[in-house]
Structure formats: C-alpha cells, structure tokens
C-alpha cells in the first residue's frame, strides 16, 4: 500500500512512448480486420475469454466467459457469436453495450502461450438460428452476444510465459488462497460457517446451463 495521500507519479503518453521505444512494425502488420483460418482455429479451441466493455462515460468493466472449446461461434469472418449463460445476472456487460457498443475480447487456449485479441462492437440478440448453435446439455442459451470484428491479432506469449499460467505446479497458488466461502463471510461480516457457503457454491456450480 502507498503512503496515505501520496499518489504514484502519473506519466504522460509522450513519457510512456519514450520509455517503450517505437512500436514494432511486425506487431502492427499482424493486426487483421477479420477472423482468418488461423484465428478461427484458435477460437474453435478456446474455452475461455475475458470480455471488456465500457459505459458511455468510459468507465470500464471486464468479465470472464467460459464454456466448452469453440463456444464462441464464427458466423463469418467479420462476425462472432457468444452465448450468454446463467451467471450473476448483474448484466454489467449488457448495460454497458446499450450505451457504448465497443468491446475487447481476449481468448485463451489452455496450454497455448499466445492469446487472441479481438476488438470491435457488440450487441445482444435472440436470433433463433444463432441460439440453436448454442444449445447444450438440453438447454438453449436465452441470449447471445454478436461481435462485429474490427481488429483481430495474436498477442505474444510473454505474459503467459512469465506468469507460468499453464504450468501445473502453478496450481499450488490456490492452496494459499482463502476459499470463496471464507472470503465472502469475512468481507460481508456474515456469522456463518464458511463451509456452508462453500457447499452452497459447489451446489450452484453443478447447474452450469
């Protein structure tokens, strides 16, 4: 924690650029305006992504989305569709998209160090032919997000290499974390056995669709 009242120094973009040096020409060249066959393959094998949105004032939000690999459908090379599965019903992303349709997605494939970044605009749909492609375990998705792709590119793997994200040994970090029940009961000051909360969550996690 920083000392009370003392904020870390803020850099201007010029100062940041000075420290980073010029952008790599190769990096700029690899940004496509569509989903080519390599990106399609990445999406077909990705079970997880982070979805970033922002409201009209630019206040940002980032939320995790996951399902079986390929849960995001490539409708054509400029259009993706992602099912909306039962979650916390807060609908932050949908509320933001109603005001500001910009989205950023970051796809992961377990074991692959590079990530796929997709930027564009998005809206909610209940189009039957789209939802039919998301029917799973006997249930339909009630809504889907249509993402109109403006930029797509592979992001180099350094962040995942440094973070040892796919190293099985990294899972030992979970042992150092409180359980969700311990965390919630402590944060909310609940006088209940954290185990009860954990068991409740475990129950909820069995209803995924």
């Amino acid at each position, binding site marked *: 924690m920083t000392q009370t009242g003392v904020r870390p120094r803020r850099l201007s973009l010029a100062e940041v650029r000075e420290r980073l040096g010029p952008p790599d020409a190769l990096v700029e060249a690899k940004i496509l305006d569509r989903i080519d066959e390599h990106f399609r*393959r990445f999406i077909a094998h990705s079970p997880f992504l982070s979805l970033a949105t922002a409201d009209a004032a630019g206040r940002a939000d980032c939320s995790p989305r996951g399902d079986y690999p390929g849960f995001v459908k490539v409708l054509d090379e400029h259009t993706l569709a992602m099912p909306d599965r039962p979650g916390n019903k807060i609908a932050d992303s949908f509320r933001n998209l109603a005001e500001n349709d910009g989205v950023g997605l970051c796809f992961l494939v377990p074991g692959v160090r590079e990530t796929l970044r997709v930027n564009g605009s998005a809206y909610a749909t209940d189009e039957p*032919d789209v939802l039919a492609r998301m029917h799973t375990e*006997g249930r339909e998705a009630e809504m889907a997000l249509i993402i109109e792709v403006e930029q797509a590119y592979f992001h180099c793997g350094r962040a995942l290499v440094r973070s040892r994200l796919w190293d099985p040994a990294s899972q030992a970090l979970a042992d150092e974390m409180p359980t969700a029940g311990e965390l919630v009961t402590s944060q909310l000051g609940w006088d209940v056995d954290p185990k009860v909360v954990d068991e409740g969550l475990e129950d909820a996690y069995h209803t995924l669709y």
Partner: protein
Amino acid sequence: MQAQHTVIDRVDQVAEDVVSLVLRAATGPLAPWEPGAHIDLTLPNWLTRSYSLCGDPDDQERYRVAVRHDPLSRGGSEYIHHYFRPGRALEVSPPRNHFPLLPAPRYLFLAGGIGITPLLPMLAAAVAADIPATLVYVGRSTSTMPFAEGLRARYGDRVRLVATSEDGRPDLGTLAESLAPDALVYCCGPAPMIAAAQAVFPAERLHTERFRPAARTFAPNTPFDAVCARSGRTVPVAADQSLLDALKRAGYPVASGCREGVCGSCELTVLSGNPEHRDDIGAPAGRMYACVSRALTPELHLDL
C-alpha cells in the same frame, strides 16, 4: 463402456457438405457390429457425437461413418469438417444398436439425406441374404446425397433416388399402399420425413431413427429418489436436475453423450419403479436413459 483407440485413415468428401471418415483400429480388432449400429466419437473440443456405422460389418480393422456439416452446428459436425484430417488419433465408443434390422421376408428402406448411413449396411445385408429390398433415397439434389451414384451402380433398380428440387417430395402414401403385407419399413431422416412415414406406415412394421430429439413437451419436472440398489445409496434428484447429473454428482461413473436422449450412452438398468421415458430411442423394458428420462413413481430402483 471401453473406449476404442482408432486413427483417422481417410477423410473423403462424398457429397456437398458431407465427409466420410474411415477410422482404422489402432490397437487390436474393433468391436463387432450389425447394421443400424452407431458409435460415439469423442472430439478434442470435449463434445461427444454419435454417427451410424456405414461401412462393412465384416471389416474388423475399420469403421466408416459419414458426417454432414450442419449449418446450425453446435460444434460437432463443424469441428469434424474443419479440423479432422487423416492421421489424427480418435477415441470411439463400442457400437450400440437402437435400430437393429429384424428378420423379415422383404424390406422397404426410406432414407432422407444423411439418414442414408444406417440403411447402407442394412441394404447390403438384405441383398447379400437374397431378401427383396427397396431403397427410396430422398435428398434435395443428387449432389447433396452421399453414396447416391454408387448405390445405383451397385443395386440398380432396387434403389430409387428422389431429388426433391426436381421431382418434388415422394408420395409416401402410394408407397404405403403398395407395401407388401409382410415387409418391414426402416426409415432414417429429418423429422418431417419421419413424421410423414409415421402417418402412412403401420406402426408395428415401421422402425425409425432420428438425428435430433423430436420436439415434444412434457409435464413439469418433479423431484424423485434414485435408489442405487447395488451400493445401497439413495440419490435425490431435484426437479431442475437430470438423473444423469444427480448420479454423476453422487460419484457414480455413468457415461454420457448427447444429453438429449438420442445416443443411448447413459443407459441404466431399472429394477423397479416406473420411469418416465423422454428419450427418442425407445428404451427397452427395464432400461432407461438418465440424461432426459425421469420417474412416474417417487422412487426408481437402479442397478447401480
């Protein structure tokens, strides 16, 4: 159910949007099968999909299936079409048969599109046994109908191809009127074709298989108890939960596949109690499919 290890030997386009996969045994001979049987393929994207075997039942080294790329694919046929190439290792289930060819003095086979697959080995078996058989094979146009040319070449007049874009839909009523009284009818195709067949052929002589569950509505779910007789445990099944999920959660290793009552991987033996069958397979007496079926009695006693 022991998974079998295979390697994709060939991937051939056999019609518009249809590929045939030949799977070669990787370890020892493949489990035997009879016409009408299907296998489940376990795909790298964690999905399991069932396909009818359409090769030669005498070949213990190879299975053949054919897969149509469904434009509304949830990730099964699309994955196979985009990413399956020869040389890939693939786990497949042993064959199961919910559509067996019963003995009869003559047969009428009725195929719609990719529904030809289970009927191919049936027709071959009937012809090999010198049993009179007719195949009426319906599709949008011959280019969308896998194996159409080969069938005509091999079986001649026993095969009638109907391209609906040119010939319109076949008149099943006329077929039913001219059906010999001792013939059995085997029909596999899209839901409208199965419904049309059910409307004109006598139910006791018509055998059908569908690719996707029929659209039906059921009484609201009620909770019930699954009594697992062998292990002496009772597993409560909540109204919003499937029997399959409840059993899996309780630690029972029940296999699962389509989760919509079509493939039959989650078959269980019922010792007592009345199941409410919601599958499209037609569970034999004393069996049920845990993914969709529920209970009409407060308890089901299962052989688990």
